[in-house]
């Protein structure tokens, strides 16, 4: 059954992509507007990964997404534990953080924390060098702000994951003399991970697309690359179509990776009845509610 499905993946996708391109071409050539002609050559040139800057821009998108997501998970764990803490100041801090970052637009957060805070001389976002790599301030700001924003959303996902773990597990750990820290890292979080991983994958899918907003910081990631392309060649239709296709490719590849991770994870934990079966790649790509797990999505 799964073997058949796997064999079907690549042809299905190929057909999908060809269909999209054909649709674009057909839609334009049969357009009533005489003034516009779709230029397949320009489109293919824009799409060509060997043309100047495309791979670099994709690399920036991927690296920033991964780092921001990792930061988001770390902050999400802290915020989730903070929300559940017995000590009131921890709870208040976590709640205020979540309230602010979920309650304001990401675009405003980016502009305020980069330009606003920079102008107020509160934080300069100066370039730093790590292992000989120069990291410009705008890229640092992009990773940090996307990560902090993501942490506010991950907090709720992680909290739900922790709450899904049987309280008897915590009691057993405590009765063996484990501290809060050991109980969390060794017993509770590894079990919560099973519940957290499917929605975490969905968050990363969002993150890949959301990075396009960091063009406001002047970072040349995939979207900004195509903004520049169409400024230079006056062909926005072709440029943004190419841009959309690249993002579609990224999220599609991620969909496959995600369903693999989920399957492996469900198998590795070997807790039969309580294990969450990995969603199929179909569910990941097309959001089939019947097969995706309960806690996913917002």
């Amino acid at each position, binding site marked *: 059954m799964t073997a058949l499905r796997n064999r079907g993946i690549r042809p299905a996708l190929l057909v999908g992509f060809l269909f999209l391109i054909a649709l674009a071409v057909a839609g334009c050539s049969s357009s009533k507007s005489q003034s516009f002609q779709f230029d397949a050559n320009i489109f293919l040139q824009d799409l060509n990964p060997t043309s100047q800057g495309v791979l670099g821009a994709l690399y920036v998108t991927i690296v920033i997404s991964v780092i921001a997501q990792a930061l988001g998970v770390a902050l999400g764990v802290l915020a989730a534990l903070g929300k559940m803490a017995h000590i009131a100041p921890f709870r208040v801090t976590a709640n205020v953080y979540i309230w602010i970052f979920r309650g304001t637009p990401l675009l405003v957060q980016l502009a305020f924390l980069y330009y606003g805070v920079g102008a107020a001389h509160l934080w300069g976002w100066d370039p730093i060098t790590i292992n000989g790599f120069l990291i410009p301030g705008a890229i640092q700001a992009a990773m940090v702000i996307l990560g902090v924003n993501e942490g506010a959303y991950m907090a709720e996902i992680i909290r739900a994951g922790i709450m899904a773990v049987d309280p008897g597990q915590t009691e057993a750990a405590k009765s*063996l*003399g484990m501290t809060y820290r050991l109980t969390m890292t060794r017993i509770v979080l590894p*079990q919560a991970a099973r519940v957290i991983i499917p929605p975490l994958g969905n968050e990363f899918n969002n993150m890949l697309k959301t990075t396009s907003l960091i063009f406001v910081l002047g970072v040349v990631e995939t979207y900004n690359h195509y903004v520049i392309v169409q400024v230079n060649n006056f062909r926005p239709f072709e440029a943004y179509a190419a841009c959309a296709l690249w993002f579609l490719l990224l999220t599609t590849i991620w969909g496959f990776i995600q369903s693999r991770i989920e399957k492996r994870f469900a198998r590795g934990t070997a807790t039969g009845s*309580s294990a969450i079966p990995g969603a199929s790649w179909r569910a990941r790509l097309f959001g089939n509610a019947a097969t995706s797990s309960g806690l996913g999505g917002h």
Partner: protein
Amino acid sequence: MTTPNVSGNLLGAIGGVPRPETDVVVDARDVNKWFGRLHVLKDVCLQVKRQETVVVIGPSGSGKTTLIRCVNHLEKIQSGRIFVNGHLIGYREAPAGGIKVPIARRRNGKAPGATKLVEDKEKNIAQQRQEIGMVFQRFNLFPHMTALENIIEAPIHVRGASHDEAVAMGRALLERVGLAAKEHVYPNQLSGGQQQRIAIARALAMKPALMLFDEPTSALDPEMIGEVLEVMKELAREGMTMIVVSHEMGFAREVANRVVMMDDGVVVEEGTPDQVFSSPTQERTKAFLSKIL
């Protein structure tokens, strides 16, 4: 079916009988506990001497679970003191009144020597719990770990034992509870009786001075009760100090030094198994026994 081979000595696997530091291992004095407005433990006193097995019986809701959970501070108490091995559990004594007494009255405030309980630091509580093993009604094995990993987890990460040392002890314990073949098996592939035997081995691996059992066989299918009771009897015979909440009369008659009857948060009666089961003095004990026999 499988008859667990527990004939070898269980405590030998952990290097002999852990020797409690005091003659009286558990000393609970006038313990009071409320859940909100519900008064669950009312001036409860309980003493357990070294190598004694005490069986606690009583109707559902009488406070048996709460009492043994207070002994390792899984529940807070509102007044009284619980000592294990001579150490006050979960709290430290602080001068009574403390910050609540206005500055002007501090000098001539409270009677000298009056103290109140302040909850101890998390780290100290964790340390105290290392000496107290607990076995739960629903086993609570860690589902993401194999049988052996469940057993060696705390010795390695809490006691700081080396991996090899912990594995050697873990294997010895698995063998003594008759589950040597299940070393690499995850809990969900084990029967209830097997899981509970591993839970006992997991608690023993910390070399506790005291073991607490909360109805360890009441979630088991009847055919599995025997194998768990066998392990517990063996433990009792070898000299482990234990408090067992259980209505298994056979077990109590065979190994209990004392039976404690609780009802409505009060210790109603206590005595040898024969006294309590055969000639109870209290009406409530008689009524309860007539229901479970």
